[in-house]
């Protein structure tokens, strides 16, 4: 069955396989929503679980995510047409002073892998930029990434700025990155900490549902 093929192709990171599968499914008049959920997202979930268990690692997740993006390009117009909405919005970025983005990219991919729309602000993002993006995109979740012990403190500043802008009650703030701990997350007043991208996406999904 074609959804099964898409699922398998995505897990292998086979870009062409996913594209062909999605096209075939659309040609067969399968529902776009079903293609998304049973073809793409369920495969990303498998990858996420394997990643969490260390069975696969960062490169495989990126390769799989690339395949998912290829499929999404074909699928997106149809999803919009049929009125399928993302399950929620996320504003995500690496804080000021820090240029590490691979972990953050992985988090974005896993978020997209559970059906969230992510506004990725990139790296070296100032507190003001986060605030502006929240005002613009009205996300349910804000994700902050920091990989340096010297930039972890910047997360606190971002949370403060969100509070000062009167937006703190509108968003749930999630933090992560190698040196960040759940204790640190609590101390700076974040709502959630996740130690890896898979966990982050499970938690995010729970939050918006």
């Amino acid at each position, binding site marked *: 069955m074609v959804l099964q093929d898409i699922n398998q192709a995505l897990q292998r990171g086979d870009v062409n396989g996913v594209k062909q599968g999605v096209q075939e499914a659309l040609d067969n008049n399968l529902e776009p929503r079903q293609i998304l959920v049973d073809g793409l997202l369920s495969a990303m979930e498998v990858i996420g679980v394997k990643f969490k*268990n*260390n*069975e*696969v*690692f*960062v*490169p*495989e997740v*990126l*390769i799989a995510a690339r395949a998912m993006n290829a499929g999404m390009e074909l699928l997106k117009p149809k999803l919009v047409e049929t009125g399928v909405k993302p399950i929620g919005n996320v504003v995500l970025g690496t804080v*000021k*002073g*820090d*240029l*590490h*983005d*691979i972990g953050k*990219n992985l988090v974005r991919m896993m978020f997209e892998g559970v059906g969230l729309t992510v506004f990725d602000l990139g*790296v*070296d993002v100032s507190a003001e930029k986060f605030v502006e993006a929240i005002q613009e995109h009205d996300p349910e979740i804000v994700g902050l990434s920091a990989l*340096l*012990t*010297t*930039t972890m*403190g910047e997360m606190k500043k971002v949370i403060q700025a969100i509070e000062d802008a009167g937006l703190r009650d509108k968003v749930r703030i999630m933090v992560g990155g190698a*040196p960040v*701990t759940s*204790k*640190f997350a609590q101390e700076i007043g974040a709502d959630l900490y996740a130690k890896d991208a898979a966990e982050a996406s499970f938690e995010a999904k729970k939050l918006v549902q």
Partner: protein
Amino acid sequence: MKILIRSNHREQEVPFRPGETVFNALIRSRVPMDSYCGGKGTCGKCKVYWVQEAREVLACQLPAEDGMIIETTTSQDVQVLASSIEKTFNLNPIVAAHSGAWGVAVDIGTTTMVGYLLDLQTGQELAVTSMANPQRVYGADVISRIAYTQENPGGVEELQKILVQALNGIITNLCDVGQIRKDNIKAMTIAGNTVILHTLLGVSAVSIANAPFEPIFSHGQTLAAKELGIEMAEEGSIFTLPCVSGYVGADIIGGLLVCDLEKEDSYGLLIDIGTNGEIVLGNKRQMIACSTAAGPAFEGAKISSGMAGVRGAIASFSLRDGARVYETIGGAAPLGICGSGLMDIMAELLAHGFIDSTGAFAASDGLAPWQREMLTTVNGMPAFVVVPGTDITFTQRDVREVQLAKGAIRAGVFTLLKEGQIAPAQIGTVFLAGGFGNFVDVHSACVVGLIPEELEERVVRIGNGAGLGAKLCLLDKTEFDRGIELKKRIQYIELSTRADFQELFMDAMFF
């Protein structure tokens, strides 16, 4: 208010300030402590034993209380690299020398420091001494130390003071061994990374920790010994070698003075592996350099059974006819695995198909019975039993840590190759510097892919290149000038702003 510290069968009373943690109290009293995170509670290395409560706790999470009895078990001093390859030079000392004039060359590493005492008139080396860098207690890597100065007023001065004290300690040792007086030391040359040189001069290095990572100074500095409080001749001078950038420091310039890349037609590659990997690629026509963050995995940190290269560490490992063969430092009973052992284990597991090219442990039905017997599970994940009957294992998680570290270094190498538009095979010589570079088995490093595999036959170890470079500068001032020229010639490549780095890093993580 005091706590009582017991370590290695010695007792010592340590005062503390109200509200202070045990960790901070110990640091202020200069009690050696292991820490990678500088007291943030994240690395788990500052574990101590609280005698009254009979339990292990992290010193940095433990508020000090009057009368506490604390046992520490800090590892013995790490193996230090003092000897390097031989290098010829013209005797033309950096300061005018008469008979009875001596000089000291120092390499201040992040973890250890080495000092050499040299006769400026004859060039003869009289003594060598080494010690742990006392700044270690503020964090294993330089970033954690900068974080300390960010959070603690007076931290910059504290880091400077402790380093100057250590340099004076080195001078005292050298003078003892060489049987000379301190005021006969007329000059001192110093190599070290950019952050360390900032701390030595009492300059905040915060700007190096945050994008765009600009140092406050990178030129070689000449200072009066008096100004820094270094105990040597009144009129004595101190020279620091120049740095290339915030993360390619004077230690690398020192190494380059040893390997002469810029004099050759064929390309040479200098790789200095520590928590950061600094890499320089060059020949007569071009010189390019980058710094890539490997993390402390090669020093045993973040590895489940990892440890520093001290007594009891498994330093080499192989599988012969289905049997494990290993050696430990000092021939002691095995306690864990250090960097060189780690690379050997990784290489053997790859060579024997325990681990596939993605870094995953092979499914057990693909393995021979003797191989299956060597595996176990740790936290539900496969692991290789390194020493049967102990909990020294090499886990799936550990493989992932190795992949990040070796991926970062390899991606740095390949970024430079790409930038210079040259193929690996065009490289004539690979110079390996630094402690890890000196102890790691070259074959293993090539199997794992830390060094491009086709270059295995072309690897030369230069040992402590930074220290040798500092010596050259002390004895021949044209070498010091050459260092300044090198600084000007080298084009620095910042990896963190390159769009293609992620792709190269992903490729480099596979085996």
